[in-house]
Every structure is written in C-alpha cells, then in structure tokens.
C-alpha cells in the first residue's frame, strides 16, 4: 500500500474533536429527505434535486418516500386547511432527529392565497427550521437554504439515542 505523503503530518497521527461536532458533521451531510410536494414549487424542487443543480452534491440526494426513514421534511407548495392534519401526521411519524424546510412563499406565509382554504404558514402546524422564500424559489436559493440548514445542524446541540433526555 502506498503511503500517503503529507506536507504537515499531525504529530501524533490523530486529531481531537468533540463528539457533538462529529455527529453534527455526519448528520448534515447525510440528510434523507421526504418531499411533501403539493403544488407548483415541486417543479423547482425537481430541478434542484436532479442533475443540473444536484442536491446530492450536499449530501441530501436520497429521497425517502416513507417519513420513518427520513430526517429532512421538505414541505413544498401550498398547504390547505384540509391537508394540515396530513402534514402533522407525516411530521409526527418521522424519527428524531428531524428538520423541516419550508420551501416557497406558500409554506412560509400562505403566499398569495390569503383566503379561507390555505394555512397561513406551515409553522402554525409544525415547527420549521429553515424558511426558503420565493414564488417559486430558484434552485440557487434552495441550495443556499440547504447550506444554512447544514450550518444550523452543525452548530446545534446534538441529540443521540443513548443520551438520556432531560424532562
């Protein structure tokens, strides 16, 4: 086996870090996404997810169509009052840790649909981590939102199963 030659070898051939930081690093680059797509923003999601803009470059390429296997819920498109219980069920079925992305103006605030049928922002139904505005948002905006979510995941207090939860 060829030895890897480095200019500056670590003196003791190991690095120190915090478990919290490693876990954050691992989690932010392996986001399994559940796309909850209801409307026209779905087109922009498809564009972002496919090869041209390629969400997979940031480690969020694997789409799971079961909320039990996903840890990033992408709410893409208008959520009506009738759909709100479905969205909440999907969110509750996801296992921890989980993050929610509000994709597009409709999910952020109801958008142009200020009427009897549409939920005025999905944060009324489920907690949201990142809001991506735009009607629809351009793929660059979505990627920027994803990077911000990754930054948030990296710096947050990581919750792991064997850690006893307070409360």
């Amino acid at each position, binding site marked *: 086996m060829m030895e890897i030659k480095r200019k500056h070898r670590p003196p003791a051939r190991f690095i120190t870090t915090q478990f919290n930081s490693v876990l954050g690093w691992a989690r932010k680059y392996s986001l399994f996404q559940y796309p909850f797509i209801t409307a026209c923003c779905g087109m922009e999601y498809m564009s972002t997810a496919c090869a041209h803009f390629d969400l997979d470059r940031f480690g969020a390429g694997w789409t799971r169509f079961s909320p039990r296997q996903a840890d990033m819920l992408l709410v893409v498109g208008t959520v009506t*009052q*009738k759909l*709100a*219980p479905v969205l*909440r069920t999907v969110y509750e079925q996801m296992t921890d840790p989980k993050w929610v992305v509000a994709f597009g103006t409709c999910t952020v605030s109801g958008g142009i649909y200020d*009427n*009897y*049928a549409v*939920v*005025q922002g999905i*944060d*009324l*139904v*489920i*907690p949201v981590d990142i809001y991506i505005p735009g009607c629809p948002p351009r793929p660059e905006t979505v990627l920027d939102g994803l990077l911000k979510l990754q930054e948030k995941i990296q710096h947050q207090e990581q919750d792991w199963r064997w850690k006893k939860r307070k409360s």
Partner: protein
Amino acid sequence: MEETKILDLLKEKFPGEVKEVLTSLGDEVVIIDKKALLSLVTYLKNKPCEYTMLLDLSCVDYLGENPRFEMVYHLFSLPRNRRLRIKARLGEDDLRISSLTGLWKNANWLEREVFDMFGVHFEGHPDLRRIFMYDCFEGYPLRKDYPLRKRQPCIKFRE
C-alpha cells in the same frame, strides 16, 4: 338544424318557462325558470338538438339582488360544435334545483362543488356532501357575505 334557430325552437317548445333568450359572444344563452330545468335539458340532450355534453355547471352570487343566486349550465353539442348556456335564478329562501346526475355522470362532482361553495341543494343527487372543504367546515366560502378573513382551521394550531 340551423344553429340560430335553437332559441326560437326553445321558445316555441317551452313558452312559459323560457324567460329570455339572447346571444352572447357567439353562444346562445337561454334564461329559464328553475322548475323547467330538467325537462328543458332532457329535451336539449336528445334529438334534434343533441347537446350531448355537459361542459360545466356553476353558480353566481349576486348579493343584494332578488333572487340572489344564479345557476349557469354550459352544454355542448358534439355533432354540431355549438355551445349553449342555460341560466336559472334561485332565491335565497329556496335554494333548490333539480340535479342533472341522471343525465350526466359528471354533474355529480360539479354539483357537489356548487353545494360546497354556495350551499345550493340539488334534488335527486345521490351523494350530496362537501367535495373541497372538510366536513367540519361551516358556511359557504364563495358566497359574497362570507367574511374575507374568516379562518376555520381543521386542526388545532401550534402556540
């Protein structure tokens, strides 16, 4: 059959029920009494008129007028490539009109939509319940007197 003669024919066949006929944007319009709807439409669907297709069915709320609501039916004749619009007024106190589900299957969902949005009752409809809004929704959202900012959440919101 000459296209322009359909209105004359209807006036002749249903003298008491047809209130007014006119032509609007190239289509024939006939305004009728709501009691005559089913017999008139049955006549139109069969020969010689052959308006065999129900394109759409909707309702308009003219708040402040009497009668307040107006049902609008759009028929289409496939053999002759002609459209016909039928209008019938409905009073607020008697929001009933006969259902067309016996003649066209697609009237089922269209009438459910009108029932959902305006609260018009279709007599003879096999399954008249809400189609867009949830069952616990109160009121009829497309009526002009439905409050613009009124919200009726289906589930309890956070906070």
